[in-house]
Structures are given as structure tokens and as C-alpha cells.
């Protein structure tokens, strides 16, 4: 069961309890947001990798060697 650590700043007392329904909902919202962010990053990285592979293939077709292609990005 998810738990919450509650700190009462007025007394300095810290207690641990199970989450309420509202807190579970908030947690699920955060989880969905984090997953969406993760998918966005993975999609962006995949798009960059795909574009790079496509560019390298076109350069190879033009007659560049692998060393010459690598030198372009240094």
C-alpha cells in the first residue's frame, strides 16, 4: 500500500500513514504525466537516430567512406 510521510512543521512530529483516495488519484496523474514525458523523449531520440541513419545512407550512396562520414560530425 502506498504510504505518506506527514511532517507537522508546527510540532516537528513526523508520522507515516496510508494514502487517501485523493492522494492516490494525484499520484496516478503524476504517473501518467511521467510516462507521457518518457514516451516523448524516447520518440524524439528515435527520430534523431532515424534521421542520422538516413543521412549516413545518403552520404554513402554519394561515395563517402565511413571515415569521411564520421569526420563530418567531429
Amino acid at each position: 500500500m502506498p504510504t505518506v510521510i506527514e511532517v507537522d512543521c508546527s510540532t516537528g512530529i513526523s508520522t507515516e500513514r496510508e494514502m487517501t483516495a485523493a492522494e492516490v488519484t494525484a499520484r496516478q496523474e503524476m504517473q501518467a504525466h511521467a510516462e507521457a514525458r518518457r514516451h516523448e523523449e524516447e520518440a524524439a531520440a528515435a527520430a534523431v537516430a532515424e534521421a542520422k541513419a538516413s543521412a549516413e545512407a545518403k552520404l554513402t550512396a554519394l561515395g563517402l567512406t565511413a571515415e569521411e562520414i564520421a569526420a563530418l560530425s567531429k
Partner: protein
Amino acid sequence: MSVFLQPIYTQTVGAGGTTVISFNNIPQTFTDLQIVISSRTNGTGGVRLIGAYFNGTGYPSNASFRELIGNGSSVSSSGNSAYSTFGYTNDASQTANTFSSHTIYIPNYANTSNFKQLIIDSVSENNATTARQYLAANLWRYTNAITSLQVDCGGEVFQQYTTFSLYGITKG
């Protein structure tokens, strides 16, 4: 100018971990608040965000942020009209025993006339190519004074030795 930083409370997570930390009854006597987090979760994705909300209301609809993210190989920026985060937490996919660091500054948190601003600076730690630095400005379009703060890690569990420290800053 703010010249005095006073510790309000520091909570260290124990062996069982926890999913949410809630600071309640935050004193209304300071000018600004600062939250410092050292975090590690049990996730494996390496891109989990720490989220936060105030006064136990759940994630706000009247909030927006603008963020700048560096991940070790590229830089990106984005904005959103409904969410606020405290940056990327370290998790189990990153180097053992490392924790991400987060500093959040909230000016005029007890004021009941102004919307609440958050300035966020965080960095994850990893002995690998990918580690994230996160800078963000958040605006919570609520005039309520901040009396409590809840911090969540989106479906994961904050691990042992994660710490949350709350400070009050008094203007000079």
C-alpha cells in the same frame, strides 16, 4: 534582500521507502520558502519526474511552467499549462548509491494577493552518458497562501536516505 535561511524540518526516508512526503502546517512567518531534495526512487526508466502540489489540493489546473532540459547529449525546452515538476529523480537504473539534487525557491509563499512562483534547479547523477539537468520556472495561478506542500514521484517509491529539507527565508 533575503539574508536569513532557517531550517524548518528535514525528513529522511527510512528503509521501507515512501511514495509521498507532506509538509503540513508550514509556518507563515517567513518571506520565502526553499525546498532542497536529495532523491532516489525504485524505478527503472531513468526519466521519472518529481511532482508537487500545495495545500493538499492535488495537481492544479491553473498552473504553467517553462523548462530547459539537458540530458548529456542534447538540450530541449518545453512548456505546459497544467503541470509542475521538480525535475528528474535518480532511480534504480542509474549508478548505485547516487541521488539527484533539487532546489526549489518559492518567493512570497504566504502572500494572499500574488500568484505563486517557483524557481527550480535540479540535476540527476549518473556515471554514464545520460544525466539530466533541469531548470524551470513555474507559475501557480492561485492566491492562497501555501500552508502545506506535497511531493510525489509518479508511481514510484522514494528510497531510503532520500531527504527533503524545508527552509524559511526572512527578508532583511
